[in-house]
């Protein structure tokens, strides 16, 4: 009826028109269902992807956490060993040399040199032991720990290390302080091992929100776009991320390297 009014058509053509309308409707309905299911499928896929990513991230976090814990345990064990065993033996050797010096009327200069060497080795070992010991790091504030590390480096006289602090010293959470310190230690080790540098500058800036630390050297640098097999830099970045911070490595061949680390305080 409706169609007859508007199209002035016969019953036959009206039936054909209805047939076409219904058919087109059917095609749209089927197409719509297919699109709905594809969209749902893709949405679900994306959800799964996000879930998998989160699981992966959590796993990496846990794995890194365990790695740090194991490393700390190892450091503590080495520190304890230096203090209780190697340190004691060197102390004993020093005492024995003192006795030998007293007993010999004209003590040879080699004996004196050896005694001095033992004293230096003992001091160096004590410094190393201190910086490996987690409890001691937790006792001191961040500037004090870094100062000890810088002093130790300067004492070796292999490299010149400058340390500067900007802003008022802020208290940091033990976990964040320890990881930040280990990151800086790792950076220094990398410089000593690979950079062939004569100078290291360490600057820490206590901003309102976070701690910014920059470690720069005047070494040979490297091409950051070339993927390296070493884990040192990756570890630095991963550790910074683990405690909600970040690390940016900049380097150019023959122009040295700079590592900028931003770590939240977490008190």
């Amino acid at each position, binding site marked *: 009826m409706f169609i007859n009014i508007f199209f002035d058509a016969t019953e*036959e053509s009206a039936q054909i028109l209805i047939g*076409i309308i219904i058919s087109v409707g059917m*095609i749209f309905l*089927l*197409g719509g*269902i297919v699109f709905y299911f594809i969209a749902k499928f893709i949405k679900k*896929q994306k959800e*799964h992807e996000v879930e998998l990513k989160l699981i992966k991230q959590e796993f990496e976090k846990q794995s890194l956490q365990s790695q740090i814990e194991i490393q700390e345990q190892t450091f503590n064990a080495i520190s304890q060993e230096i203090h209780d065993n190697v340190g004691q033996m060197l102390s004993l050797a020093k005492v024995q040399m003192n006795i030998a010096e007293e007993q010999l009327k004209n003590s040879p200069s080699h004996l004196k040199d050896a005694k001095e060497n033992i004293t230096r080795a003992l001091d160096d070992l004590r410094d190393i032991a201190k910086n490996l010991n987690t409890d001691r790091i937790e006792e001191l504030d961040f500037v004090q720990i870094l100062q000890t590390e810088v002093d130790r480096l300067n004492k070796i006289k292999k490299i010149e290390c400058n340390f500067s602090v900007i802003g008022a010293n802020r208290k940091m959470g033990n976990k964040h302080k320890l990881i930040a310190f280990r990151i800086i230690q790792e950076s220094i080790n990398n410089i000593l091992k690979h950079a062939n540098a004569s100078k290291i500058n360490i600057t820490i800036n206590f901003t309102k929100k976070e701690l910014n630390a920059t470690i720069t050297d005047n070494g040979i640098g490297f091409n950051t776009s070339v993927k390296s097999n070493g884990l040192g830099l990756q570890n630095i970045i991963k550790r910074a991320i683990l405690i909600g911070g970040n690390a940016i490595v900049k380097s150019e061949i023959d122009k040295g390297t700079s590592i900028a680390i931003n770590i939240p305080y977490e008190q």
Partner: protein
Amino acid sequence: MFNFLKLLIEAPAYIAELVAFVISAILLIRTRNKESLFFFILLTLTCFVELGSAYQLFTIKKTNNWIFNIFNPIEFSFYVWLYYKNTPVALYRKRILIGLFALYLFYIIDTLFIQGVLYLSTYAYITGCILLIYCVFNFYQYWLNTITVTAIKVMQWPMFWVSIGVFIFFGGEVFLMSYFQYFLNTHKMEILFPVWSVLSNLLNIILYTCLSISFLMQLKSQPKY
């Protein structure tokens, strides 16, 4: 107008069928697996039945419906087997299998006692279409809730294209066959046959195009069906 449209769409439908057949042959040569062999057999049968019907090779008493009453259950069996194989959930597999045997039984009853051998068994055909739609939904539901779904690139997944083709074709066939049966019963088939024919060929084009894409995806990546 509709005769022209019918002609215009019948040729691409046959071409789509033949293209799918050729690609399935290439796929069989390249992969030599069971699925490719079954697809090749199905498409050979389809081309044989469709082209044979077009050239009236199977006409008995002015009708060739009897050949479709034989071919359609074979076609359903193939697709049901494909979904049975690709659905790992035991409960779904059991339901699919029961559905297939019930369909065979209904085909026999419909052909012999309800509609007759020389008439198209539309009731059984519609039931078969509904069974396949159920299989597609089962399959979709299973994969949607499986974690491995993330590893699948939808557009490159052969079963995705098979399912799209099967869903649109058999979903449309439910409507078309009901439509066909209604107009046969009301003696208006002659008027609406061109519309029906155009739609039927359109559905064929969609199915065989989807199957061809699925074979091409299989050739490209060669994952298992």
